[in-house]
């Protein structure tokens, strides 16, 4: 169970894993996530399901701390200690007409099955993909297939238009394109900016939140956010919420709670990784 069948690099420090998990693969739907513990002594971390087959789920993971670094060092053939899911409420897919699916950075991965579902459902899907720079843009081909039109933006203009996803979205609106609903998945700031834009334009907007989690089943409340002034648990009430109701500032502060702690362990881990690499290189040098 939970054997990594395939692993590949999508961008620097962004890996894609195909994991054997039949009981999850059987019932997952777009928008749901799993809780993973790479190894026995690891933290539990939430990862959104990016794709699946009859017996596998696909996860796209960016290395941002120790747990994701440990995972980055695992290879095809190894087993994850735990993979629990599918958790959370599936993304709401309805017939609305035109849908803009906005994915930023690794957020493109979870946006992919949502775009696909909207397309299958008969909505006209415009995908807006954003990345800092060209080499960080992932899953462009898949997204092209999952949508009717694809717009690409990079912060530095190295690929597609120069600018942010909001620039692209604003331009589509200015052109008078029919956008009845927006789905945004990506960094919290990006979702906040998108929500601000669509609030003014009066377009319903769903965002998929990625808070810190422990159990992922509603037991700890560590994942809580304020939505429309009420406390909600992202793992069971979400991860998808009305973007116009989410208190993003509170969420961003809570996301950053453990950053100092984690920086330390991450740096220690990078150090041991360097030593390990040096050790394996040693013989060839001789």
């Amino acid at each position, binding site marked *: 169970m939970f054997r990594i069948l395939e692993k590949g690099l999508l961008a620097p420090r962004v890996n894609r894993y195909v994991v054997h998990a039949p009981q999850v693969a059987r019932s997952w739907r777009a928008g749901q996530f799993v809780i993973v513990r790479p190894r026995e002594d690891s933290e*539990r971390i939430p990862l959104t399901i990016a794709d699946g087959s009859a017996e596998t789920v696909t996860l796209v993971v960016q290395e941002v701390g120790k747990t994701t670094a440990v995972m980055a060092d695992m290879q095809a053939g190894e087993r994850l200690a735990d993979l629990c*899911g599918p958790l959370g409420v599936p993304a709401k897919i309805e017939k609305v007409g035109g849908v803009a699916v906005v994915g930023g950075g690794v957020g493109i991965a979870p946006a992919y099955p949502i775009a696909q579902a909207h397309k299958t459902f008969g909505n006209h899907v415009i995908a807006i993909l954003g990345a800092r720079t060209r080499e960080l843009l992932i899953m462009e081909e898949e997204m092209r297939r999952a949508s009717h039109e694809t717009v690409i933006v990079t912060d530095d203009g190295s690929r597609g238009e120069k600018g942010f996803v909001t620039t692209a979205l604003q331009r589509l609106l200015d052109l008078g394109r029919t956008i009845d609903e927006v789905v945004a998945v990506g960094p919290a700031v990006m979702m906040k900016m998108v929500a601000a834009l669509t609030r003014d334009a009066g377009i319903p907007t769903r965002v998929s939140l990625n808070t810190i989690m422990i159990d992922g089943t509603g037991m*700890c409340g560590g994942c809580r956010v304020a939505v429309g002034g009420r*406390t909600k648990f992202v793992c069971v009430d979400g991860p998808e919420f009305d973007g116009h109701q989410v208190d993003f500032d509170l969420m961003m*502060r809570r996301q950053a*709670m453990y950053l100092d702690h984690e920086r330390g362990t991450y740096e220690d881990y990078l150090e041991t990784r360097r030593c390990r690499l040096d050790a394996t290189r040693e013989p060839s040098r001789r």
Partner: protein
Amino acid sequence: MTDWRARSPKDRLRLPAQPMPEQRPDARVRNMNEVALGFSADQARAEAARCLQCANPKCVAGCPVGIDIPRFVAAVADGDFASASAVIREKNLLPAVCGRVCPQEDQCQAACAVTKALKSAEDSVSIGRLERFVADWELGHGYVLPEKKPSSGKSVAVVGSGPAGLTVAGDLVRMGHAVTVFEALHRAGGVLIYGIPEFRLPKEIVRREVEYLERLGVEFRYDWVVGKTVRIKELLAEHQAVFLGAGAGLPNFLDVPGESLCGVYSANEYLTRTNLMRAFDFPASDTPLIRSRRVAVIGGGNVAMDSARMALRCGAETVSIVYRRSEKEMPARREEVHHAREEGVLFSLRWAPTRVLGDERGWVAGIEVIRMELGEPDASGRRRPAPIAGSERVLDVDAVIVAIGNQPNPLIAESCPAIRTTKWGGIVVDPNTQRTSMKGVFAGGDVVLGAATVILAMGEGRRAARAIAEYLEQGDWNGAPDPIPDE
């Protein structure tokens, strides 16, 4: 020592109660080891010799699983610990756990004839400590697996591996049924593993009790969230009956401004980080815990005491329990309150939080509390607290742990509308058979009772196991709560 039986009851009443050896408070707040160290063999025999061996023992009726207490205590007094262990195992699947965490003072020991004769609850025979002694002796000396009936060819799915689920699994597997336990987390034990701290219940003990069940043939599947990974209907297609023992894991929050500031935790989060994920070992374990200096714990139950004592062990300088009634109304066990006091936990009684204050970075900078006065007793028999206008003051703290109760997680019921629940989310069952409104599905423990106790959960598990066995044999489904009509 074998002549203890020769002593008259009057003589026995004169024997002194044995004190429980404990780690010193100043030492134990700096480690995670167990506070109570357990009786020595001599102490256990001396304590057991105090039992009057009543012809009509009241203690047995006080035990929710009906252990034959006089018989096991007599075996301890005889020094025949193996027999004592066998007597306890007849009725109790988790003796090392119950010996540590049961509220014996309200159960068997409250009914003890020695308590009555000496008019002192403190001087009852320490049945719980004897149970613990015997269970620990057994862990050290090995056990003989009980006999199993031949396979019935039937199988049962158990949802949740807390004390309720473990009891059902143990009882049914011995009756010859195949049992698969589905657990959402990555370890078995429920609250025993994620909630009750190491210093009160070492996790190694829970692990060994689970291993005992595995050796009996119970299959455990981890990372299975019933209602998400698999639905109850699907379980029923593969098993002839389902038992729901999913506990009461959904934490209540305060519903005051600032409850989501950084540094406000539910007790569940705080204890899960420290127990299940071993954050106190950070960075040796990967799960972090913020080092807080001044901690307020809101609530007056066992969970609040556990959180407060855990916070001290995780390096807090001051920890205060903030409780809206007085000490008399505190639902925590006396022993827990006593241990917390000894360790230096402070008590702000008759104060209730009104809001949590934050700094410019969104971290807890204090908590505003208001003085409460106690009015007439309410439905629970406890005096109802009411705020005194204008009495607010601010406690200088940098972390708040909220321990004001849990409710059943709605996940299962939401995924299966055929299961009837109460207004507060508890699953409705027939009290004699633990049957739910859905045919073939039984429930018990905190998911039915709301946050209760280990032994009550086990008692419900025992009753459910009996009813499940009967149902597997006879197949009739009478007396269960009315089914929910199909729409």
